[in-house]
């Protein structure tokens, strides 16, 4: 198969439709596409309960919130895998922080604090750009410290795709 054959047959996407899509994306806000009731973990939840959650559900990341619904941090699959197989972690990561995390019994102790967050009034364009540029897979949506939703790359793709029609 020639290179020409591979790339012919369809007009470059970005030339026509792409420009139009960009305009449309500017009008779509995060609050329109976010998942508004994400499964959350409470700061004081026990590690076993969290393992159980990761076993039953298949989301990559869960937000950790306090009793007021304020976002404290996130727990993702990488954290869980590292906790389950701490000894397989590379020696470079044998920091006291990792060790402290592996000893913690609560969500607060094992979570990654200070995750990157976005507000619900940001546009689809803005967050898609950040996702592309900085390889971020998902964002917690926070308005005035409160977790109001979560947006992941697949939601963004779906939203852009549906804008086409």
């Amino acid at each position, binding site marked *: 198969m020639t290179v020409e054959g591979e790339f012919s047959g369809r007009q470059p996407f970005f030339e026509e439709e792409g420009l139009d899509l960009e305009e449309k994306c500017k009008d779509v806000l995060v609050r329109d596409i976010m998942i508004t009731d994400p499964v959350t973990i409470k700061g004081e939840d026990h590690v076993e309960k969290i393992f159980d959650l990761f076993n039953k559900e298949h989301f990559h990341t869960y937000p950790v919130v306090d009793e007021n619904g304020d976002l404290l941090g996130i727990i993702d699959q990488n954290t869980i895998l590292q906790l389950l197989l*701490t*000894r397989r972690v590379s*020696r*470079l990561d*044998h*920091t*006291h*922080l*990792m*060790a*402290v995390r*592996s*000893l913690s019994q609560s969500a607060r102790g094992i979570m990654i*604090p*200070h*995750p*990157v*967050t976005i507000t619900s009034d940001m546009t689809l364009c803005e967050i898609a750009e*950040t996702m592309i*540029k*900085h*390889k*971020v897979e998902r964002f917690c949506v926070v308005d005035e410290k409160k977790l109001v939703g979560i947006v992941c790359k697949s939601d963004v793709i779906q939203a852009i795709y549906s804008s086409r029609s």
Partner: protein
Amino acid sequence: MMEFLFQILVILLAARLLSEVSERVGMPGILGEILAGLLLGLLIVEETEAIASVAELGAIFLLFTAGYKEVHIEDLKASSKKAIVATFFQIAAAFVAGFALGRFFEFGFVESLFLAVAFSPTSIGVVVKTLLDMGYLSSKPGSMMLTSAIFDDIIGIFLLSIVVTVGKYNAFPTATQFMLLLGKLVFFIGIMVILGYRVFPYIFNYVQKMHSKESIFAAVVLIALFSAYFAEIMELDAVIGAFIGGVMLSNVPVAKINDIQSKVSGLAYGILVPIFFAHIGMAVELEALNTLGSFTILVVVLALLGKLIGGFVGAKAIGFDSYESFIFGSGVMPRAGVELVVISIGREMGIIGDEIFSAVVLMVAVSIIISPIILKFAIQKDKQKDTSTPVG
């Protein structure tokens, strides 16, 4: 240029290869990296200014990543007062041992002080694997070691700032000079805290919207360099600034995106830090070790014993039994990072000579090899005690 390229190529290649060998035999990579430098120093590579500069960047990024990746300000707040007592004892004992040894061998006051500071810190990472393997990470002494290690970093940096200032005056500072140093350090930390909480988040908010390539990564590196340079202006040392800069960035979410963390880690541990460790190895003078044979042996023995005994006494003081105290003492023995930075600064300032420098490098290497072995032995003793205790 050609020569510089060749040197960097050879040093990095040797450091990476021997680091891998070291890891394969169950030792930390740093051991292989120092050994690579030692061999290259003996065989072909001459130490040049260009290599020394790259190595200095390695030291800066070693401490920057320590602050950026490993310190959480919240951890300090949560740490117990008990840990401060145990930490104080093990650091004080090692410090006194180092200073007394230097004076005994008639080294100068400042030189002895550098030796004392090089004796003081602990690199807990070396024994984490042993604790994990033996299932003792969650034990009382295990968790105390971890808390102690957090204070260790902070105290190590504080001691380093003092010793660097003392080095500049080449005498113990007068009360006024000491207050001036403290003032500068407080001023520096104060400015960095304001930057960390007020300015950096604002900068990163802007940087993440920039169109130029790798803007966030570049901003993180720039802040590392800025913090190091700012510390130098304040007559502190660059590495102190880098560490504090790293700590200040650790709370800025955008700066800690996984992708950025792995790039910073790649730059530091993939390139610069191995060159720093190899450069340390290159600077070791085997002849110097020979001429002062008994001194070298005492550096190794006292540095290890200082921590072991200091840790033992400290742990006893907070109510641990003898077995647990032995475990704690042996766990705080390893040195692998800050101490090498201390002696390389001392050497660069022309304060410490080849004898102390080479002996401390040897001490670091021995501590890396021997600490896990002694810790394992201590844990086995503790386990034997538990099984021999009659039930009921």
